[in-house]
């Protein structure tokens, strides 16, 4: 017994010691020096000849290869693949100078990640992908990321329109908080099942012949079918036995805010949440209110089940692909996802409702890559930020992501150039006019505590939109004008 305990003691002590040593290791990113054999191109007598040399550490090397990390928030296969392809391409071109290491992160954890990194004084990636308005702007306000202006060249600046750069500017000191990767508008589409439309005798909307919200609802009714094939509005329609739904929007606490505002702003050409005479508030004019209300009350028309409240994007794709829904309201990035998950399903895309003859406004802004505060190689990181915005590179990134590239020239590069589903979006860009919004740090609080609950009540029919609008305006004045 005694010996056993002795042995146990020694074993556990040694295990503990080893583990302690392992635990004390700090997570330094590994500098890539794994290459044993290197292809070196030597120029010999005017002709280049490639030979293979074993690499030995040469102290005379002018610059060591620098590795920076990119923390990615990609979340579906084709977007991840695209980013990795981009990183590989960069590493290829910048071999020996800069190498980028791709790290898979998660959209929901960006705040925690960056915050911890700052608190730890470093040790996290130099580059992090995130949204600009609620993300990068906020991070800059909290001094968690760097201003990119010191690293910007004119060439870099020229890669994006001024309006888009303005969307990435922090209002107080004019700092540029992120580069431009993809845009969030225009991004909304109505994806549909061509067979259903054909069967109902409905012509899909096109940019030249758009639908209004009334048209959408009417057509959706034609495609809301019960088990006997009768459509909504027809006599004999069986309300308890609906097998096909005409239109499935996304209506949860995020989307009643995001989508509604998007539609309203599309009409108004100005931000809904903005400053008027220096006072922040919720300003919806008549047209904006009309659109917002149409969007929110779609459920009450009966073309979507009450269960549509809270459905995830994936459920929408599923419903479309298996024929339960004829039309869904989704963003452009749904297209590659649906192609990936349901390769046999033929997808149609059409523009979201707007009045013919109206100007289509879209908001500048979207996503970008930020440089964290304690980045050890800011110059090299900036180089990547610049490189990735070039048309041929950004096209890879944006296409895989299913979103509009921040640099419009990328739309002319592959793979965008040869994909017809993007024509609608290209058309938007041509017809549309861009506007910018300003940053308010209390937007999240306003959305979560006032706007989303109120708007949800409108969706459920517990409150009229007019009422909600009034309360929103009132509360916004109180909340959004707090001192930071």
């Amino acid at each position, binding site marked *: 017994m005694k010996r056993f305990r002795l042995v146990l003691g020694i074993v556990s002590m040694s295990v503990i010691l080893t583990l302690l040593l392992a635990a004390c290791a700090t997570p330094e990113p590994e500098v890539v020096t794994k290459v044993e054999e290197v292809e070196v191109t030597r120029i010999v007598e005017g002709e280049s000849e490639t030979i293979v040399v074993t690499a030995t550490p040469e102290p005379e090397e002018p610059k060591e290869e620098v590795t920076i990390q990119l923390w990615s928030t990609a979340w579906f296969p084709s977007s991840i693949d695209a980013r990795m392809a981009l990183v590989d391409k960069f590493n290829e071109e910048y071999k020996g100078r800069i190498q980028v290491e791709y790290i898979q992160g998660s959209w929901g954890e960006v705040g925690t990640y960056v*915050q911890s990194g700052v608190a730890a004084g470093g040790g996290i990636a130099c580059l992090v992908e995130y949204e600009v308005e609620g993300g990068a702007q906020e991070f800059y306000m909290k001094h968690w990321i760097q201003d990119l202006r010191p690293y910007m060249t004119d060439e870099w600046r020229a890669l994006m329109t001024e309006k888009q750069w303005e969307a990435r500017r922090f209002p107080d000191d004019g700092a540029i908080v992120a580069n431009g990767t993809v845009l969030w508008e225009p991004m909304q589409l109505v994806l549909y099942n061509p067979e259903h439309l054909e069967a109902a005798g409905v012509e899909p909307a096109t940019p030249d012949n758009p639908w209004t919200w009334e048209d959408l609802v009417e057509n959706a009714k034609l495609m809301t079918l019960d088990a006997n094939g009768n459509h909504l509005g027809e006599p004999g329609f069986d309300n308890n036995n609906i097998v096909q739904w005409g239109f499935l929007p996304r209506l949860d*606490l995020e989307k009643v805010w995001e989508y509604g505002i998007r539609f309203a702003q599309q009409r108004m050409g100005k931000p809904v949440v903005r400053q008027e005479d220096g006072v922040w508030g919720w300003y919806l004019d008549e047209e904006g209110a009309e659109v917002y209300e149409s969007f929110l009350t779609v459920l009450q028309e009966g073309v979507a089940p009450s269960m549509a409240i809270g459905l995830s994007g994936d459920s929408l794709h599923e419903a479309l692909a298996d024929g339960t829904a004829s039309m869904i309201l989704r963003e452009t990035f749904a297209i590659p996802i649906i192609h990936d998950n349901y390769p046999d399903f033929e997808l149609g895309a059409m523009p979201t409702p707007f009045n013919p003859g109206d100007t289509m406004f879209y908001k500048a802004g979207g996503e970008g890559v930020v440089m964290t505060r304690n980045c050890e190689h800011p110059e090299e990181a900036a180089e990547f930020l610049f490189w990735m915005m070039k048309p041929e590179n950004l096209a890879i990134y944006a296409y895989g992501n299913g979103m509009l590239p921040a640099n419009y020239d990328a739309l002319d590069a592959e793979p965008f150039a040869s994909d017809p589903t993007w024509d609608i979006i290209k058309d938007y860009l041509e017809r549309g006019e861009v506007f910018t919004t300003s940053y308010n740090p209390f937007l999240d609080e306003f959305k979560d505590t006032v706007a989303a609950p109120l708007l949800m009540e409108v969706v459920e029919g517990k409150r009229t939109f007019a009422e909600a609008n009034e309360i929103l305006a009132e509360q916004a004045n109180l909340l959004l004008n707090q001192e930071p």
Partner: protein
Amino acid sequence: MKIANRFKVSGKSVFPYVLLLPTVVAIIMFSLYPFLSGIWYSFTDIGWVGDEANFVGLKNYKYILTGDIGAARFFKQALVQSIYWTLTAVAGQFVIGMFSALVLNERFPGRFLFRMALLVPIAIPTVILALTWQWMYDPFYGLINYYLRLFGFLEGPKAWVGQPNSPMWPLIAVAIWRGFPFMTVMLLSGLQGISHELYEAAEVDGANVIGRFRYITLPQMRTIMTIAVMLHILWWWNHFDIIRIVGQSGLEFAYRIATLPILGWFEAFQWSHLARGAAISMMSMLMLIGIMIWNARREIRSVRL
């Protein structure tokens, strides 16, 4: 159960203090200091980690208790939710726990297998059980809806969690599932301390099963029942993970199921009002202490006497 005689220690011996030293240090550093920091923060106006903290007195508390914008709007609702959540969850855990303890107290072969099964809900990481229950609650292909449809209670798909207007009780069901094994274990230990002779005597006196339960089991178990219930109230009042992972999708603030800890977290980390979040957590804690004291009032009275 013998009660150990305590060694009487004269003021000279330092041994117990030596033994306790590491504990005290650890607690001071990792519980007390953060706790006091939290309290301090609640009296400042700090917005996020790294922000400057200026003393503002009771402003945050006033804001939350009397204000009606931002988090203050939801404070009373969150309080009610917290009470509802804790009470229902612990009650459910107690009932099912007591039932299980009574069953598993009986002697029958293979009893230990069932006891092993009992420990499974405790052993699983919260994240995993949250994911699994989310999958089970899936509106289209979930297990629960399948059986509901099978028995004719449900027609089409129905989402129980994760929607803005989802009720609380599916989450409470998860909480009960998660918490009752521990209750069972504690009650079981109490049951096994009751001597058989008492039961035999009662049986002889003509008491049936229910009578035995009421007049012997319950009184004997009173202490341990109080302890068990109090412990569970403490745990589940402060509970966060299940509501957050199963009940919410993404970073949405699902205001209909928000309890005080959730509200505090959102205020601190989502809406960048660290100080107010700390204030909410403080008030949550004070309420918890109040509930616990009320629960244990008998014990406290006996200590006083």
